[in-house]
């Protein structure tokens, strides 16, 4: 009998501590929930404004969609902001993935007009080698800004390649895989943005 009593006592104590712990976590969650959502929204807006210059950005009204597409590098759901001017679809900003980075996936934010002209691009997150592949990051180098105002005509666009492969895009010293990966991802994303006017009704 004493043995069972001890087991029951232990079970009760673990349940008691678990209940208190869960209650405290739920309480903290209820306090911080809205603040966390606001922070994430704020962060997204900051990122949007870094990709689309404010003088352009302020002239648009934007609407957020979630989308899955093979051009965006993986099968995950990506954020897509469609930018309207006078109720007319003008441009889009897309979160995309370069799956073939040197050290894993590279997440990129790409903004472009629907005619294929790039407004801007920024790397959101990466695991590239410090000092070599990390030059894709705006805080390390301004390499990514060289895509601004370039027009992508098609997937076979010969200009939209690294100089090493006969294109216009500069690579950086000591790394080829990383810039090539980012370049391909941006190209595919811009091609996807060009198709948005035709698939816009499906997004709704």
């Amino acid at each position, binding site marked *: 009998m004493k043995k069972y009593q001890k087991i029951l*006592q*232990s079970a009760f*104590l*673990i349940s008691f*501590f*678990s209940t208190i*712990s*869960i209650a*405290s*976590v739920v309480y*903290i*969650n209820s*306090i*911080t929930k809205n*603040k*966390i959502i606001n*922070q994430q929204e*704020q*962060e997204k807006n900051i990122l949007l404004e870094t990709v689309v210059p404010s003088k352009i950005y302020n002239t648009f009204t934007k609407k957020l969609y979630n989308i899955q597409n093979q051009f965006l590098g993986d099968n995950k759901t990506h954020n897509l902001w469609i930018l309207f001017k006078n109720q007319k679809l003008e441009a889009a900003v897309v979160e995309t993935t370069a799956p073939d980075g040197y050290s894993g996936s590279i997440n990129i934010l790409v903004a472009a007009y629907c005619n294929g002209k790039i407004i801007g691009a920024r790397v959101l997150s990466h695991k590239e*080698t*410090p*000092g*070599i592949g990390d030059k894709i990051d705006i805080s390390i180098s301004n390499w990514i800004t060289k895509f601004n105002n370039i027009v992508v005509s098609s997937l076979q666009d010969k200009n939209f390649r690294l100089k090493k492969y006969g294109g216009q895009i500069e690579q950086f010293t000591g790394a080829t895989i990383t810039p090539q990966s980012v370049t391909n991802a941006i190209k595919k994303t811009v091609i996807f943005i060009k198709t948005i006017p035709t698939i816009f009704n499906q997004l709704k």
Partner: protein
Amino acid sequence: MNIKYFLYVRLWKNNSSLIQLLGLCPVLAMTTNSINAIGLGMTTTIVLTITNTIISTLKRIIPHDIRIPIYMILVSSIVTSIEMLIHAYQFNLYQSLGIFIPLIVTNCIIVGRADLIAYKNSIIVSFFDGIFIGLGSTFAMFIIAFIREALGNGTLFFGINKIIHSTDNFMFVHLLDKNSTIILAVLPPGGFFILGCIIAIKNAIDLYFKKQTVIKNINCSCICKTKK
């Protein structure tokens, strides 16, 4: 209790990162930048202090047989709560520390101190033990990060605005030109190498003072003998 000795043991003699070599995963991963190191160190210190205090308060109702699961329940809930608070009020720091905040749950230092100190000592001793063991770990992380950031990136306190929001993004010290940096320092092997060097320096300092103490004692005993 001798306060000086209490501090000496926790901050220097038994430093959790340099002597006990506990929780090295976050120590090596987060020390490429001094601000991240301070951020993670302070978070670990807060978790340690709260955990130690709570366990010391409840030690009479925690049975010896099931103390470890109860520690884990308490530690995980405290860490989850702190993670949510950092996410809400220190968003930039949260983004930098990322996965290493929830990983504090698995840090050996936390459960180790809970079992070794908090379960057997008073609330005040446990509280201060948490603070100073945490500060010892933070100090070790900061020293490693200081060297790694200076050599690897040529900067110091890069991203200080993550912790002090009022500061500007560019309020950091430029020590080296980008071309003069040593990339190895910010890579994982460099982390191990620098940690090893710091441990060696610490041991050398300890050995030096030990020798000095021995020489002092010998001199003292000689003087005493001649007086007799």
